[in-house]
């Protein structure tokens, strides 16, 4: 195991530590790195211009997460309710697209949404004669791309607790006079929170650091943190600031992961309580 750990240390831990160190240096006049200590790069992260991009990214990632969780939960619920012997096949086909190339799955949406794409042609077929709607290069397109790419994971994450749900709990709730809606809200939903949280964190973390989808479906008009980091390293040549942005991204990720761990802990407590109640 030593060679593997050495590999990870040399090519992940050391480079990441280097980025952290880089964030405290200054940008040289000609774009290089000047080795003088500064906190200015982190200050710049909070500059309204860049803070705005962070908020933008959070909003886009948040919307994508919400949409993906709603669709993914509904899909997982429907799969868990299907006849048992079909469930593995449904699950397999729900995850299959996730295994194909990310770029290509994103590209597929350019084909659908572009001005002469399938959606425009469908509209024409239904008798629409006006200008083709501009759907590509909008925030909606970016969100659609993110939801499409990460939906399979939400389905998978939500299916696990839904399939393990004890049907007697829902029956008991109904026997006690609760409506279907109340049963869902008070019994099923709380017990499946860990799955929702895992799926949501996955979508949010991957979306907020995403670079490809905003670049391709947003047409460069919707900058997200990932694009900003990319620019600092490959076009603006301000590596220290790019490094500070990357560290801010990691910080956001860690906060989200800790929130998930907390939610999972609390849900585990509730589930233990529900189990105890059902047994006793």
């Amino acid at each position, binding site marked *: 195991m030593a060679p593997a*750990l050495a590999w990870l240390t040399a*090519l992940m831990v050391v480079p990441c530590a280097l980025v952290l160190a880089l964030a405290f240096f200054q940008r040289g006049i000609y774009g290089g790195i000047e080795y003088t200590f500064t906190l200015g790069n982190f200050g710049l992260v909070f500059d309204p211009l860049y803070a705005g991009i962070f908020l933008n990214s959070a909003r886009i990632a948040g919307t994508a997460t919400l949409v993906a969780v709603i669709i993914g939960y509904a899909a997982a619920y429907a799969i868990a309710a299907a006849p048992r012997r079909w469930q593995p096949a449904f699950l397999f086909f729900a995850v299959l697209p996730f295994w194909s*190339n990310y770029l290509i799955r994103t590209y597929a949406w350019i084909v*659908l949404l572009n001005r002469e794409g399938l959606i425009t042609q469908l509209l024409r077929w239904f008798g629409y004669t006006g200008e083709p709607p501009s759907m590509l290069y909008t925030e909606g397109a970016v969100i659609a791309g993110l939801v499409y790419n990460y939906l399979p994971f939400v389905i998978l994450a939500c299916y696990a607790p839904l399939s393990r749900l004890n049907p007697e709990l829902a029956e008991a709730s109904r026997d006690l006079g609760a409506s279907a809606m109340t049963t869902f809200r008070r019994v099923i939903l709380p017990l499946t929170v860990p799955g929702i949280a895992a799926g949501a964190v996955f979508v949010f973390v991957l979306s907020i650091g995403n670079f490809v989808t905003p670049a391709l479906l947003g047409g460069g008009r919707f900058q997200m943190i990932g694009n900003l980091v990319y620019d600092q390293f490959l076009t603006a040549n301000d590596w220290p600031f790019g490094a500070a942005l990357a560290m801010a991204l990691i910080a956001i990720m860690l906060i989200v992961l800790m929130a998930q761990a907390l939610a999972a802990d609390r849900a585990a407590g509730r589930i233990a309580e529900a189990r105890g109640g059902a047994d006793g």
Partner: protein
Amino acid sequence: MAERSPATRRTLWLVLSLVFAFLYIPIAVLVALSFNQGGQPTVWSGFSLKWYASLAGNAAILSAALNTLIVALVSTAIATLLGTLLAIGVEMRRQYGRGLEALIFAPMIIPDIVLAIALLSFFSLLDFTLGLHTIILAHVVFNLAFVCSVVRARLKSFDWSIVEASADLGASALTTFRRVTLPVILPAVVAGALLAFTLSVDEFIIAFFTAGAGRASTTLPMQIYAMIRFGITPEINALATIVMAVSITALTLSQRLNRGVIGQ
């Protein structure tokens, strides 16, 4: 599951149909258009294989495909070896610190863009010449983590007492590994290797940052990205269909070998 009213059941089927339509229509449209005769990338005008033929004559795409194959094969070989040994080492000890867990888990969750810039900074600080070899070094990082997690899942149910028994009967450590441990974990090792191969074939951002300037070390995803930025063409549709077919085949095979481990 409890009995449901016909209305509820209809709603559930509707949900399933809509979700599967959402997941598969974009891919289906892309695949269908790759067989399109006309030059319009999005308007159907008859069946043809000419875009596949034109791919075969495109030198840039062929060289990118060759680069991708080299990177994927070499990084998969290294990652499979290191990842498997790591998995055995970690599982044999049973007690492992949280630090070790985090180290193995990190490559799977660290945002690609962060690992990409970290490696770029690292390589340029060391004055490394960038090229296919730096992409390979980088790809091994996440590939070995994935191989390790697949093999570890298999080892969870492994009975270590048979390893002791083999040693007691006088087998050397190598013989024990070859005759006892390896046969048990082999399906997981192959599954992990197939997963690593696919991840490497599909990986774009880290390759993009660690490939360096110049076309010599362009990989297939980099080539596809450049083509997409330039505009949509029927040729991309054909290339996308081939790449998708390769990754889906490799991963279906991997899933077969290792039922239920991937994706959990």
